[in-house]
């Protein structure tokens, strides 16, 4: 028996392996990761890890012994370079080949490169892997002026950390507002003010034209000719799904590897999960590719359940979070197409939630330092129960009572 081969040892790949053993799968499992590290959690990297509050050992999902004990053949520092579906075999970067009965593509996504001159200068970083963060951590203590290109979660989380460490921080965002792709304008404005009050300089509508410096980066040059002096740049302008292995051999892709409710691709022996998977989510009603811990973990569990004959369609209402300074932003649902937003609590107190409605139907809840609203929101959305906008706005009304 060739067994099950998992390509990618991030959150989705790890979870698939773990859940397979948990669910009683007894065949061989090979977990292939391109990084040198055993599987680890990425969320702490841009926060607690950079602040020195945790370390490389503690961000691991499991101890190294776990894999051998559970007969998971963990193979690190290895890439899969080709996939031959006809003979059900993958080729590895060390030149060897590996056959499979079932294949899981958990290849993730890579950081979108900044397409400007100077992007390769020393002192310019991306922030996705443990190695990325270790490289930043070496330079950060000596940096005075930090520039962050891209005001998404990663960029803003890093900006908050750098500011806490006493750096002068400038965030450059190409769009008119921060986190524009994922949050309501009210939240963009609130977070902008919160960062600014703590000394972060935020520049929106900023088109980066070039980075320049002699030995290392010294300034960011914007299209309008203005310049930002810097000695450390972090680029966080989104990611590109790693579909190449699949697309090269004809597996259906559409902004990611297209999967069904059991995470099966167009090839019945190949699954995909995590950042790379594009799925017609019942909650969204269209193809979505979710870049989140929840999605990666739940899709990994979905595959394990399907392989072990306990198939359960993946339908979890999507949830996300981001920690910036002492703000805990938690989001559940997808606010696309919403036409009404209701505030619960007061923004001035830094504890509030936004309830997003499409007509009378609750579609998403964004919470700031209101974890109970978030958890209740998850339950309401999962149950398809919508409080009236008046109930959502009334802090005295117990939303739990509707469940």
């Amino acid at each position: 028996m060739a067994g099950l081969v998992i390509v990618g040892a991030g959150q989705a790949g790890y979870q698939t392996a773990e859940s397979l053993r948990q669910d009683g799968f007894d065949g061989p499992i090979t977990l292939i990761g391109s990084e040198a590290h055993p599987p680890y959690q990425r969320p702490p990297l841009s926060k607690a890890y950079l602040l020195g509050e945790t370390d490389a050992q503690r961000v691991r999902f499991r101890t190294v012994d776990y894999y051998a004990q559970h007969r998971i053949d963990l193979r690190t520092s290895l890439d899969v370079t080709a996939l031959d579906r006809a003979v059900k075999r993958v080729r590895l970067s060390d030149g060897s080949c590996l056959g499979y009965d079932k294949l899981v593509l958990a290849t993730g996504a890579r950081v979108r490169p900044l397409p400007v001159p100077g992007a390769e200068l020393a002192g310019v970083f991306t922030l996705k892997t443990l190695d990325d963060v270790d490289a930043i951590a070496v330079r950060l203590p000596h940096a005075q002026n930090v520039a962050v290109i891209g005001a998404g979660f990663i960029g803003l989380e890093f900006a908050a950390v750098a500011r806490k460490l006493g750096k002068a921080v400038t965030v450059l965002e190409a769009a008119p507002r921060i986190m524009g792709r994922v949050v309501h304008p009210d939240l963009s404005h609130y977070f902008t003010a919160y960062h600014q009050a703590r000394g972060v300089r935020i520049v929106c509508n900023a088109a980066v034209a070039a980075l320049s410096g002699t030995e290392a980066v010294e300034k960011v040059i914007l299209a309008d000719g203005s310049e930002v002096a810097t000695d450390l740049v972090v680029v966080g302008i989104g990611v590109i799904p790693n579909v190449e292995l699949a697309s090269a051999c004809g597996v259906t892709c559409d902004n990611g590897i297209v999967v069904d409710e059991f995470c099966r691709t167009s090839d019945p022996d190949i699954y995909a999960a995590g950042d790379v998977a594009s799925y017609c989510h019942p909650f969204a009603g269209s193809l979505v590719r979710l870049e989140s811990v929840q999605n990666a973990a739940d899709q990994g569990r979905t595959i394990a359940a399907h392989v072990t004959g306990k198939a359960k369609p993946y339908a979890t209402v999507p949830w996300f979070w981001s920690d910036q300074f002492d703000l805990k932003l938690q989001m559940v649902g997808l606010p696309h197409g919403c036409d009404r937003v209701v505030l619960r609590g007061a923004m001035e107190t830094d504890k509030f939630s936004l309830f997003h409605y499409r007509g009378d139907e609750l579609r998403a809840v964004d919470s700031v330092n209101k974890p109970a609203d978030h958890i209740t929101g998850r339950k309401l959305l999962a149950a398809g129960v919508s409080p009236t906008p008046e109930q959502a706005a009334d802090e005295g009304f117990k939303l739990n009572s509707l469940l």
Partner: protein
Amino acid sequence: MPTVTYIEHDGTEHRVELPAGWTLMQGATLNGINGIEGECGGSCGCATCHVYVDEAYLDKLPAPSETEEEMLECTASPRRANSRLSCQIKAMPEIDGIVVHLPETQS
């Protein structure tokens, strides 16, 4: 190193030594103890690392933060007087020997 005993809902006991400063959630997940999920990575955001702390050790722990208090209202298994989130409990010499009971379900 402080010792922590985790008792699963079915009675299975795990005695683990944790380096000081590690959270009880990290100690459980890194040692493969079932019954603690810690889906949010230990940022007090998911309430899936809920434990019942043995009464003898309850008073030795720092009081829960406002966020933890709020999250404890959202646990999948019932909240009791000795409920805590294990991502907020750090292994320290003062709580050497602590015993925590894991709830029936976390999600």
